[in-house]
């Protein structure tokens, strides 16, 4: 069972002043090599001590034959790659050297039958006795970008950012880190919780909630040994920062035999879903959605209310986006306010849609898109804006650049103009969002189809990102607004 986490020990796990890699290896195929390599190769600034029974040189470092040879107090984290049987002696030596946290990557514990489970319980008890925070066992590693720590046996090393990840599956740590790399929305901490022998995902949430480097937590859970403890800790953490949850195994329980109708209707998934709502957790339905919602929390301010305004230069996209928002249980498509109508009328050609969605009807060659965008974001009745059509001009420019008439016939000039315009739109969404404290979401298929598009590239440069479809943008907005509403209704500032 988990106990209240000691935040100081969590600091040793995520911001160690020195690391021991126990069981480091010179063989590139072994985890003991991979862990040592990844720590040494990614700029971790603290001291790194490799241990290997045979000594020798590993990755240009002289390996210690035993932890006992390492200077006292020089390391507070041990990354363990040695077999289960070696752990009692190893951890006792580490404790004597001042180690406060252990990440145990070794397998052969609870996942390996009754004997392994007994060994896992003994390991947890030993760490408690030694005053060592135990992460794992059977975990894939930890990431901590504020100290350039890449202590893991998986890839990749993500860009630095504000999302903290804790997962019961190492594979999903990997997936989230890959999404961080492709989106550019970065990660503060990541931990593969492994078997969670003593430190659970809920404990990590507690740390992330107090962590100055983290704005939003992203977790993957399957089984929960103590559902109540998870609920209480997650709720307390969500009162401080948003938490995005991906749950595996939602259909496994199915409907239970029960004496009551209530019991028969109480499927695992429905109860879990209700628990999430009650704790203020944002539950995602897919892996990619989970990351994207976390990225949305990291990038956008929360909308003050549900009223969305849609601006488009891309016809049908505007209509579908409006449909999606109209059908939302949480969002509202704001009826076009009369003063906004008048302001748009004075700037746009008469063929514009005169509605929300505001289809600007091909005004891209002037500055009206930017003017209308600011009018919409600034309007008191607008809580959030979705901008569609960013990148279209550069996409056309790309086609023109590839044609045989380029750069003559004025093509060079117009292509550059198009590209500049898209970069300006992208910049404006980020600047206006900051200026007015409202989310401004960009949605375009070009996010996937043409990631080199200057509009997409500019967003990324500014720490934001584009949604690959307006449906995804609307889903993200629903989560942002629900979290805001959860806080408002409970008097959480």
């Amino acid at each position, binding site marked *: 069972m988990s106990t209240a986490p000691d935040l100081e020990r969590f600091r040793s796990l995520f911001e160690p002043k020195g690391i021991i890699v126990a069981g480091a290896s010179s063989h590139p195929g072994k985890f003991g090599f991979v862990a040592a390599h990844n720590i040494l190769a990614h700029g971790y600034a603290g001291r790194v001590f490799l241990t290997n029974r045979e000594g020798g040189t590993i990755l240009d470092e002289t390996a210690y034959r035993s932890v006992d040879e390492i200077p006292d107090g020089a390391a507070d984290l041990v990354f363990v790659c040695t077999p289960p049987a070696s752990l009692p002696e190893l951890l006792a030596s580490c404790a004597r050297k001042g180690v406060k946290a252990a990440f145990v990557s070794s397998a052969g514990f609870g996942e390996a039958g009754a004997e392994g489970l007994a060994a896992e319980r003994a390991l947890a008890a030993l760490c408690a006795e030694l005053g060592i925070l135990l992460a794992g066992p059977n975990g894939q590693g930890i990431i901590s970008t504020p100290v350039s720590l890449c202590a893991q046996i998986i890839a990749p090393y993500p860009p630095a950012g504000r999302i903290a990840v804790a997962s019961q599956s190492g594979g999903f740590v990997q997936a989230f880190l890959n999404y961080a790399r492709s989106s550019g929305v970065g990660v503060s901490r990541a931990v593969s919780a492994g078997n969670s022998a003593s430190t659970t995902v809920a404990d990590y949430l507690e740390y992330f909630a107090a962590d100055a480097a983290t704005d939003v937590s992203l977790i993957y859970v399957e089984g929960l040994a103590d559902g*109540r403890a998870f609920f209480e800790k997650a709720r307390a953490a969500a009162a401080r920062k948003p938490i995005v949850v991906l749950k595996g195994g939602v259909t496994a329980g199915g409907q239970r035999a029960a*004496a009551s*109708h209530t*019991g028969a209707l109480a499927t695992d998934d*429905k*109860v*879990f879903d*209700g*628990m999430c*709502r009650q704790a203020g957790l944002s539950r995602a339905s897919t892996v990619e959605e989970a990351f994207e919602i976390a990225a949305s929390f990291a990038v956008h301010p929360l909308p003050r209310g549900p009223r969305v305004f849609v601006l488009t230069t891309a016809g049908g996209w505007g209509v579908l986006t409006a449909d999606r928002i109209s059908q939302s249980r949480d969002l509202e498509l704001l009826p076009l306010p009369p003063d906004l109508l008048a302001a748009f009328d004075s700037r746009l050609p008469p063929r514009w849609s005169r509605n929300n969605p505001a289809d600007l009807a091909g005004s891209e060659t002037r500055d009206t898109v930017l003017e209308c965008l600011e009018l919409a974001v600034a309007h008191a009745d607008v809580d959030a804006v979705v901008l569609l059509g960013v990148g279209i001009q550069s996409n056309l420019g790309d086609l023109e650049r590839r044609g045989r008439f380029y750069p003559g016939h004025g093509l060079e000039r117009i292509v550059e103009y198009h590209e500049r315009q898209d970069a300006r739109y992208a910049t404006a969404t980020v600047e206006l969002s900051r200026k007015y404290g409202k989310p401004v979401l960009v949605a375009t298929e070009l996010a996937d189809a043409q990631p080199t598009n200057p509009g997409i590239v500019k967003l990324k440069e500014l720490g934001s990102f584009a949604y690959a479809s307006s449906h995804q943008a609307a889903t993200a907005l629903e989560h942002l607004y629900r979290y805001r509403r959860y806080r408002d209704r409970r008097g959480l500032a």
Partner: protein
Amino acid sequence: MPATRTLSEFESKQRLAAAGIPVAAERLCADQRTAESAAVELGFPVAVKLCGDAIAHKTERGLVRLGLRDGEGVRLAAAELLAAARPADGPVALLVARMVAGKRELIAGCATDPTFGRCVMLGIGGIFAEILADVVFRLVPLSRVDGHEMLEELTHRAWLGAFRGEPAVDREQLVDALVGLSRLAEQDRAIRSIDVNPLIIAEGRPVAVDALIELEEA
């Protein structure tokens, strides 16, 4: 899991009433004669049911008579129900209740989840309840804000609005009932589950028409 026993419908509803959940007006009667006078006192039409601690599935056994309009109907129903009692039912009595008129039925209750422990449930009731499975859960204890959010989360939440000449459901009273269920579960650790089925919406107010409380054996 520990063994459980159920409380009779009458006792279940008394506990609900004590927790502030509106229940249909009813009387527990020993025989035909007292059943008839109870019906006269409550006002027709009435329902008569066979009631006992060990009787959990009355409808399946045909132990419910609904919409009885006069004394003769009540006497006849009472005689048939008493005759239908089995030795395994233990001590039985007749439950005479005023019929509650309402077009909409909800189902509410409390269940014990293996991972999260006790939780409160609200759902769309009636004969399609299990097909629709439009149900929402929260863990005990439930706040009023949680209760209001449960109503919002029903897929068919429009169902709580005005309907065929009936007023909209009084949300505050419905939340009262949900919070009452939560409090009941909190106060009595032995409660494994509570079924309020149906919770009929009469003139916009929720009324528990049948209920079953399941307790863990001490």
